[in-house]
């Protein structure tokens, strides 16, 4: 084959179009791989590097977890204020997580390769995860209590571990009392206040009622005092000593056990240890509350908020979407009007989500919510009850956003049901309503489900409108708890997608937050991918079923 033949055959151009597909595929799978590796890699215990650094003040010891490294040209390093010796064109710099933010001021440091000594991995290097101030890295020297050293060196590890477990259990009890019991008392006190205000507004605050309220309040106060005593007791029990940690600068720091989440020696862990550590961390990520401005701990409230919001949205969107689709396909006279509406509905799926957010804020929150507050919750004014962004309005806004998805999908399912089935039903004497209920709707169920799943997948990933109608970076309480009426539609909530935005872009310590954002992103992608794949499978099954 000659060159001109080859050109004439058009093959190069075909290959070129083919490369577009390849590039797209590389993009998709590359991105998934990126999220997967970064998101899941975060929980794996990383070794602590010990090395020396030739600082301007002399040689320094460095303990740190190697975060990443990059090789840069001399000019780029010069821009960052690092001068390389003459003649050297490239140098690698390393980002270490050195921890100990309370002592060193920064917990991440870029260090340039030519100033670093050999990397060593001492077995006794320990990483202490704290409730505040991030991680501490150093070598454990012993355990102190009341100013006296009670255990030293390696032999203290066992004792520290035991006491730590003890303290942690106490901590859990403490948090439970704080959140559940005290939270409940505060909630009931607030309700009493609203009740009183309501009586006042109705001019019905009689002396007997006042006395009754005062009595209830006193009872709650008493309960509160009781709980406070209990908490003090627990706090006292938690004073079980301080871990002495020698930092890289040679100083020793005492960390109270009650401030420690976990201690581990990554350099001396074997693969089994590491694996169980990994599972432990992953579980913490899924089930715990966030700590330290969302950069540590878990994302349970965000998962919970996302799921609850999506559930309420599904309850709202399904009946209405299906009703609209049945009307359009089965009842309305097919003509220009219905065709126009169909185009409009299709288009609404393409209207930017932020526009729905603006609408939700103006119409639902300010207009509907404000009116409802005036009519039903005058006692709480001027503090808004429903006249402020919250769970209900978020669900409603997203329901509106996803209703076109359900309509389109249901309509498609309805159109695939052979006309003969309808005619058969009529021929047997069924009315249209009966045909709908007994034949058409059950048969289109997979299509409806597909629509719903797609709607859920879209809603779960949507962030822009929620920023206006209800998500917050840190919600003080879950929207569902043990206090009557259990489901608090007026509360603000946390959301996985918003969590990514907030932690990744609004956090003061982006470097510390980054791994958690990847992990959150991974979780969100996983949820959405599973939902979408389910929808695709359902759709395919439906298509096969009614293939004519």
């Amino acid at each position, binding site marked *: 084959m000659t060159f001109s033949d*080859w050109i004439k055959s058009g093959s190069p*151009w075909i*290959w070129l179009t*083919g490369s577009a*597909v*390849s590039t797209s595929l590389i993009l998709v799978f590359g991105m998934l791989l990126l999220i997967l590796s970064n998101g899941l890699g975060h929980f794996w215990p990383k070794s602590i590097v010990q090395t020396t650094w030739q600082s301007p003040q002399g040689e320094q010891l460095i303990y740190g977890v190697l975060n990443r490294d990059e090789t840069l040209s001399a000019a780029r390093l010069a821009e960052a204020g690092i001068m390389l010796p003459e003649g050297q064109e490239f140098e690698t710099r390393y980002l270490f997580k050195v921890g100990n933010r309370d002592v060193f001021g920064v917990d991440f440091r870029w260090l340039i390769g030519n100033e670093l000594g050999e990397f060593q991995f001492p077995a006794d290097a320990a990483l202490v995860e704290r409730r505040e101030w991030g991680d501490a890295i150093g070598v454990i020297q012993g355990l102190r209590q009341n100013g006296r050293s009670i255990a030293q060196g390696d032999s203290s590890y066992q004792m520290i571990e035991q006491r730590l477990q003890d303290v942690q259990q106490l901590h859990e009890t403490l948090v439970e009392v704080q959140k559940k019991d005290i939270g409940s008392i505060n909630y009931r006190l607030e309700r009493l206040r609203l009740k009183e205000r309501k009586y006042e507004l109705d001019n019905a605050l009689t002396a007997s009622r006042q006395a009754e309220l005062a009595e209830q309040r006193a009872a709650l106060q008493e309960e509160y005092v009781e709980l406070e005593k209990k908490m003090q007791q627990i706090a006292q029990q938690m004073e079980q000593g301080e871990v002495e940690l020698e930092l890289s600068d040679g100083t020793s720091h005492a960390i109270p056990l009650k401030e420690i989440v976990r201690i581990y020696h990554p350099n001396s862990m074997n693969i089994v240890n590491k694996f169980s550590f990994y599972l432990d961390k992953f579980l913490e990520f899924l089930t715990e509350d966030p700590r330290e401005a969302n950069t540590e701990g878990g994302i349970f409230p965000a998962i919970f908020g996302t799921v609850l919001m999506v559930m309420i949205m599904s309850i709202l969107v399904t009946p209405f979407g299906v009703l609209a689709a049945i009307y359009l396909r089965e009842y309305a006279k097919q003509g220009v009007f219905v065709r126009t509406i169909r185009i409009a509905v*299709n288009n609404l799926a393409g209207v930017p989500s932020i526009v729905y957010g603006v609408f939700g804020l103006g119409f639902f929150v300010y207009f509907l919510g404000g009116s409802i507050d005036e009519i039903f919750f005058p006692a709480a004014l001027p503090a808004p009850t429903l006249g402020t962004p919250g769970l209900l309005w978020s669900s409603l806004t997203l329901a509106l956003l996803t*209703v076109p998805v359900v309509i389109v999908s249901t309509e498609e399912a309805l159109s695939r049901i052979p006309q003969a089935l309808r005619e058969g039903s009529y021929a047997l004497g069924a009315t249209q309503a009966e045909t709908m209920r007994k034949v058409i709707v059950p048969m289109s169920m997979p299509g409806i489900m597909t629509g719903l799943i797609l709607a859920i997948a879209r809603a779960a990933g949507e962030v822009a409108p929620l920023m206006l109608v209800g998500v917050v970076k840190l919600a003080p309480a879950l929207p569902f708890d043990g206090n009557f009426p259990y489901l608090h539609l007026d509360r603000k909530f946390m959301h996985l997608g918003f969590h990514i935005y907030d932690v990744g872009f609004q956090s003061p310590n982006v470097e510390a937050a980054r791994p958690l954002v990847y992990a959150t992103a991974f979780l969100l992608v996983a949820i959405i991918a599973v939902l979408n794949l389910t929808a*695709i499978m359902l759709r395919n099954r439906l298509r096969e079923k009614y293939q004519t």
Partner: protein
Amino acid sequence: MRNADTSLSILQSSNDKEDKRNSRRRLLDRLTRYGVALGGVGVITAVGLIFFYLLYVVYPLFSPAAIHEGGSISSPLQDEPQWLAFEEQGKIGFVVYKQGVVEFFDIESGSRTTSVKLPIETDVAVTSFAKGESSSNLFALGLNDGTVLVAELDFDISYPEDKRTVSPSILYPLGNSPVQLDEQGQAIMQLAVQKYDGLLTIVVQRQSGVIGFQSYEIEEDGFIQPDEYEMVEAEVAQLAPRAVSLLLNRAQDTLYIIEPNGRTYFYDLFDKEEPELIETLSIASPNSTITATRFLVGGISILVGDSRGEVAQWFPVRDEHNRLKLTKIRTFKGPGGAIEKLETEYGRKGFLALGEDGKFALYHSTAERKIFEKQLTSSKIKSITLSPHNDLLALYTEGGEIKSWHIDNPHPEVSFKALWGKIWYESRSQPEFIWQSSSASDDFEPKFSITPLAFGTLKATFYTLLTAIPLAIFGAIYTGYFMSPVLRGKVKPAIELMEALPTVILGFLAGLWLAPILEKNLIGSFAILLMLPLVVISACYFWFKLPESMRTKLPDGWESLLMIPLILIAGWLCIALGPYLELAWFNGNLPQHMEVNWGISYDQRNAMVIGIAMGFAVIPTIFSIAEDAVSSVPKMLTEGSLALGATRWQTLVGVIILTAAPGIFSAVMIGLGRAVGETMIVLMATGNTPIMDFNLFEGLRALSANIAVEVPESELNSTHYRILFFTGLVLFAFTFFFNTVGELVRQNLRKKYGSL
């Protein structure tokens, strides 16, 4: 017979039952019909509501201002009113008379509340009057013995029995006797006074024509201690004794002395010891005299009304030598006749002008807009004022009557030009497009030009489509026509899965992962762009040079799979070699090189990042619609073409692309709609600075991201809030238009294929 009878009756009763059941069924059927219709129409209406609600919120921006009559009261004193004004809520009004009396009244009920005589000796007369910045309630009286009395009205608000009660009082910042400003005891002919931030300045023109000023430092610890001020005095100008206007700004660092013929002296008083004459110029139009002057709120612009009935706005602008020059910014046509009085609105850049023939007009300076004009009364107007909330207008007429009107003018800042045009904002050196909606200061001039935001959206969309269109459409063509069906069944869902990916994740990756990588590997990235087509084409050539037996191992339509490792290797090579190329050609740092040598600035979060990230989000949209269009081209057309001897490529160009063109067009339209409205990616991967520069390496601020950032903090029903809703409406209309076009084309295409 009996038998038959019973059976008949049984039949009868069962018929009855049947009938009943049937009618119930019919009823149920009808109910369902209505229910479904109601529900269906309801949902569709609810969705349509979005548009109408947005319109409803936006409408007041463009509705005209209204005015209607309020209360009135007649004054007991036959005296010249010097100043008529209102307290914060517009309930209590007051008039300062030339005799040195302050009258307080309640305009709604028409009752007088108090009257206070100012501490002026009976044998001295008031020769001049000045008031401070409109929000300060400060005024001063210049007396004929060379003294000045400075007073401040204070309104104490209390709530006895839950009723708002305002009790007025008068404070004297410099003590309750007049201060001497002229040693010789010459009468004070003209006066200006300002008090702000612990500093009080009085500027006077004495009978001799000499202009001087004094500044006092006032300790603001709740008490005003007259003996704890420092005094500075300076003579600023020696002018012929004639009536000049003295304009002192609130910060007391700028003084304009304007003579009736338009000659203006522009002084910098920042250094009170050494005032500096910056410029002397004439601000009058030819053949006119200056009849009224006033500082606009904020103390930057001055308004100048002249005998020809024009109002001009001037403010100092820095020229190319960085010198301040008082510059005429814009003129407004007055209400008719020479301008008699100018009054400013409170807290915003509006003002009113009163003409010689008794007509008044309301303006907004930034919006360059005359809001309305009206003749309110036939008698001569001695004083005119607006209340602090700008919702009440009051007049003092010659007969001693005070009349008020309610003004409904909530959004004067909005005009077509203010939203879309270039506006010369205060303290800027030229007219510009600026979006800057709020700041910490009250006197801030909001800059509501949507153009830079719309530009940002278009820029983001342009670069997005630049990435997405080639990849998506070439990909769709290949997938729809060349790819083997087995592979297609796997590739399509994979690319469609892209569409489901939350954009917040794309935005996060673009901002925190891609942007730094691109910055470091800029040259590598461009190398990829250049090399990829070359690599692919040469790979194709070598493939065809391979022996037939090897080639046939790979069936037709699997080429793209073969290319994945190839592209990966080529991409990796480009990135790996990038730093060496950069070192060889650009001194090791391309962004810096661009900045220094070509003047192209480089932001880390720039339009290129947006193009790639949002391109990623838009590719699946365009891809799946275009692929539908390509793969549903009827088989007989392509087979016909192949049978006539065309190659596959010729068939593609000559038949498929032509037939599927409308579908591809609609795919692009719908992709465009998606790019325009995308929020999270532009929010996270740009610097969100509203600049007007098409530079690929600079950031932008898009309409959608702007809404997400600003709506939560905008005040309900404020102009800012409504303008943000307006931008939402613009986005809605924009996407709706493109989607509709796309959808209509697609439906027509389907019909056409249906007939084939």
